[in-house]
């Protein structure tokens, strides 16, 4: 399960940021997970809880924003939600679609004191 190694990377970043800001109590973490990533939010929550247990980070909440897959038509510029992975422009039928969201795997912010 790669959610464990993703959690590890996430905690490294969090600890770095907390050191930089000289805080020690983590309250919450906000992340974005795109629809097209191979990351299961529930598995990620589970790993996050398991890896923070009995550490100074225990009890922090993990807020996951799931980002839907969206595309932009390169022919007419229309932006739309890509449903069931059918990347065809509903306006003009164009098939040359740029993915503009849904591939994120980002830490947005943390709350700590």
């Amino acid at each position, binding site marked *: 399960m790669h959610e464990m190694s993703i959690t590890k990377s996430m905690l490294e970043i969090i600890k770095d940021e907390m050191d930089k800001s000289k805080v020690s109590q983590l309250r919450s973490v906000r992340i974005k997970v795109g629809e097209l990533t*191979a990351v299961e939010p529930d598995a990620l929550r589970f790993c996050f809880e398991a890896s923070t247990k009995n550490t100074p980070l225990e009890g922090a909440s993990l807020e996951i924003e799931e980002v839907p897959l969206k595309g932009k038509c390169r022919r007419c510029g229309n932006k739309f939600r890509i449903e069931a992975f059918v990347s065809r422009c509903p306006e003009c039928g164009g098939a040359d679609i740029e993915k503009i969201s849904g591939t994120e795997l980002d830490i947005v912010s943390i709350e700590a004191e």
Partner: protein
Amino acid sequence: MHDISVEQKILSKNDELAGENRELLTSKKIFSINMVSSPGSGKTSIIEKTLPYLKERIKIAVIEGDLQTDLDAQRVAKYGIPVKQITTGKACHLDAHNIHHVLPWVMEQDGIGLLIIENVGNMVCPAEYDLGEDMMITVMSTTEGDDKPLKYPAIFSSADVLLLNKTDLAPYTDFNIERAKENALRINPYLKIFETSCRTGAGIKEWSDFLAQTALNGHGKI
């Protein structure tokens, strides 16, 4: 209470290392591919079938990623090709760090033009981990169900090439090759698709020619 803005990719460290790998390989004119699939789709078999076609045209090194054994590495070594085993233990994918450690070994080999990396058999986890490769190859076999691209979109979305393997078995399953292609292209319209069979050898030459040409044009050396 501090609200600290981070705005960073969670795998930024991996991506940075992958970037370093890519730079190093490119500077040495080594073209690299990352082969991913479910366990048993035929990655090692395809490598075995491809080597005889490529050996004369380009110097090859292989990295084998596996959870436990070095059986795949042994299979490849029989072809007289330098091969390095990475045992990941519990990790279900290779990451850029694994590759970073092995690159000095690749550089020690003489005049390598193509580096083939076989990832751990897993349809989910390798998708998020850039290794620094030039081309990602997803292998899917006809015993797996032609809706697989819709179930595991990430691995098809990041791939450059799709090898539809075990076509010899297609008549015995309800796998529909055209539907599989359609589904894969729905996820990723830029996929280059080859149909292969390691049993009959069908499609192996086409795929090998494509790989050799891409590697040599890409920046591989003869």
